[in-house]
């Protein structure tokens, strides 16, 4: 292709003439989607001051000089965030804080990262004599970024005795860590994914009385450990404030995850070989369960069907692909399309899902009452004036069957991509 800049006087003229009917499209073409700027004939950037800015939420035109937002278009993608993390290496730690992350699926969960944030806080409390965070990781892990989460040392125990559900073997390993490293604190996520159980086993084995369901930790000079914590008690209805013990089972969001530093995540081996454990619990593997049968009250993602659903097969298929629990309006249940225990609403189940997708449900008041505590409500409906659309955070007007089919296609595409990424990684 020729490097020469070729001029098109007509187009330039159109670009200058605001009143020309093709003005906008020519501008768009010339300016590579930035309406307000385009390269002029001599390579000089030309600006159209009238196209600058956007209409703000109050209907007033605003001009954003940072250059991110232009001509009413969506914010342009910014460059990938620069890596501004500081690299920290703790060579000779004053003490150790041991963390046993859940590592579900071989990755650090949000809960794990919060817990590591807490561990970091405790390790770094005394700037003069920093401690090190040692993570005990069982089984294969795919997280390259252990150091980003604030881990200084990693004890990686990748033996097949630890795969699956092996609390006894893992407990033996943790006891060995205790013997060899004697960490000052043990932090375990108080999760359903195994952390809660493992942490309790560990505490009992170490003879320590742990703090469970901890959600807040702060420094306290009166405490023997230098910290005090607030923990939920009595099934979440009370707060217990106490000195922080050696073993802590903490809830998600107990601290902010590490975001400003990067740590070494240096592998450490245990000196002593681990003893063989005679397990009394044998893991027979996971049993497949239909996500649609998860009880409504527990479900965090519900695809709920009402009178407007005509293609029931499509609906059930969509629920399966999305991995959503199935809900129903009273009418859908009365008409026999759905089982009674699937009914959502004042006279059915009160649900508290994170996302509630109402397909063809107009939103009787009893139904709306039943989804009061749902965080995000999505409505798919033909009638844009119905109450469900008013309640919804996102409402899509159109035929439920078509939209569900498109959604299923989109999600399947997404899954494939993910699979590819995973295979690549």
């Amino acid at each position, binding site marked *: 292709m020729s490097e020469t800049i070729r001029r098109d006087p007509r187009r330039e003229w159109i670009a200058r003439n605001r009143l020309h009917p093709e003005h906008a499209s020519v501008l768009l073409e010339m300016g590579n989607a930035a309406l307000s700027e385009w390269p002029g004939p001599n390579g000089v950037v030309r600006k159209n001051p009238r196209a600058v800015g956007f209409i703000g939420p109050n209907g007033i035109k605003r001009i954003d000089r940072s250059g991110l937002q232009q001509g009413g278009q969506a914010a342009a993608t910014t460059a990938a965030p620069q890596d501004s993390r500081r690299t920290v290496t703790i060579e000779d730690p004053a003490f150790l804080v041991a963390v046993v992350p859940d590592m579900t699926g071989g990755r650090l969960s949000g809960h794990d990262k919060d817990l590591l944030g807490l561990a970091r806080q405790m390790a770094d409390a005394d700037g003069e004599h920093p401690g090190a965070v040692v993570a005990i990781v069982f089984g294969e892990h795919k997280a390259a970024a252990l150091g980003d989460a604030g881990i200084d040392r990693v004890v990686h125990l990748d033996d097949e005795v630890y795969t699956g559900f092996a609390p006894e073997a893992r407990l033996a390993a943790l006891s060995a860590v205790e013997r060899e490293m004697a960490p000052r604190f043990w932090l375990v996520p108080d999760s359903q994914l195994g952390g809660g159980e493992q942490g309790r086993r560990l505490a009992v084995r170490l003879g320590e009385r742990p703090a469970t369901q901890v959600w807040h930790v702060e420094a306290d000079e009166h405490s023997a450990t230098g910290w005090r914590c607030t923990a939920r008690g009595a099934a979440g*209805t009370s707060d217990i404030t106490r000195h922080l013990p050696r073993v802590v089972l903490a809830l998600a969001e107990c601290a902010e995850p590490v975001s400003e530093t990067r740590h070494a995540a240096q592998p450490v081996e245990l000196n002593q070989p681990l003893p063989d454990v005679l397990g009394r619990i044998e893991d027979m593997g996971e*049993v497949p369960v239909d996500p649609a049968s998860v009880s409504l009250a527990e479900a965090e993602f519900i695809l709920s069907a009402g009178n407007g659903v005509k293609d029931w097969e499509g609906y059930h298929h969509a629920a399966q692909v999305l*991995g959503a629990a199935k809900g129903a309006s009273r009418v859908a249940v009365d008409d026999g399309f759905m089982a009674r225990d699937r009914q959502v609403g004042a006279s059915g189940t009160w649900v508290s899902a994170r996302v509630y997708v109402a397909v063809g449900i107009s939103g009787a008041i009893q139904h709306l009452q039943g989804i009061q505590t749902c965080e995000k409500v999505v409505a798919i409906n033909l009638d844009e004036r119905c109450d469900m659309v008013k309640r919804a955070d996102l409402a899509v007007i159109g035929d439920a069957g078509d939209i569900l089919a498109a959604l299923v296609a989109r999600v399947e595409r997404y899954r494939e991509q993910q699979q590819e990424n995973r295979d690549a990684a």
Partner: protein
Amino acid sequence: MPHNVNTLNDAELSVAVLVSVGRHPLTGRARRADHDARAVEMALSLGDASVQLMHAGDGGEACGDAMRGYLGMGISRVKRINQDPDADVVPALANILRFAAPQLVLTGTRAETGEGSGLVPYLLAETLGWTVVSGLAEIESIEQGVATVLQALPRGKRRRLKVRLPAIATVDSSAPAARQSAFGPARRGELADCACASVTDELQTQWRVQPARKRPKRLKIVKSASARDRFKAAAAKADSGGGQLLNDVTPEQGAEAIFTLLKEEGVLR
């Protein structure tokens, strides 16, 4: 849900259920604790097992009300070990379990009053040297001293485990719901009190206990070099007032919008 549990060994399976005093989350009234009641339900569904209920606590009025709740499920008697209000119940329970020697102990995951740490089953298992397994959803069978159970995992998943007996197993809300507690059996049932020396829980007396505070909602922290971005993130309204309405869009566009929301909320796996 009927369970067809075969007990092949000749000796009758003996199951103990540890029950505690529940507390309604809104009114604070004493009731049977939800998890413990599910444990009782699971024990009752074991067919011909002999089930005994045990409770260690202060035997107050609230305790009586709660125990009637369990009796109403068709239990003839609850063994109640009287303890001081500030006692550690683990020694007393360990004592009685060692004496009663059941093959299987079921209990709720955590209590609805007091510390509610969920440690009791682990402490008992450690003391008695028994197996402990958590989060039972179903007992599939018990044969020759080995129980095959389904353990509940988040999002309705299940894992099958084989557990050597004697064992202590905890039950949470994924187990089948407890049957209705009926007035007649509750009134007839017996509260068999027995005394046991109390060991005071010293540590607990140092704690400060208050009603639970609402946890602050975590803000989305924007790490950005630009002051403008940080300001925008801090000043943005937490919830967009009205919802977004997509009219006259193709199904694909609508689906894309929904997909984006689902992904943002992290409900797609």
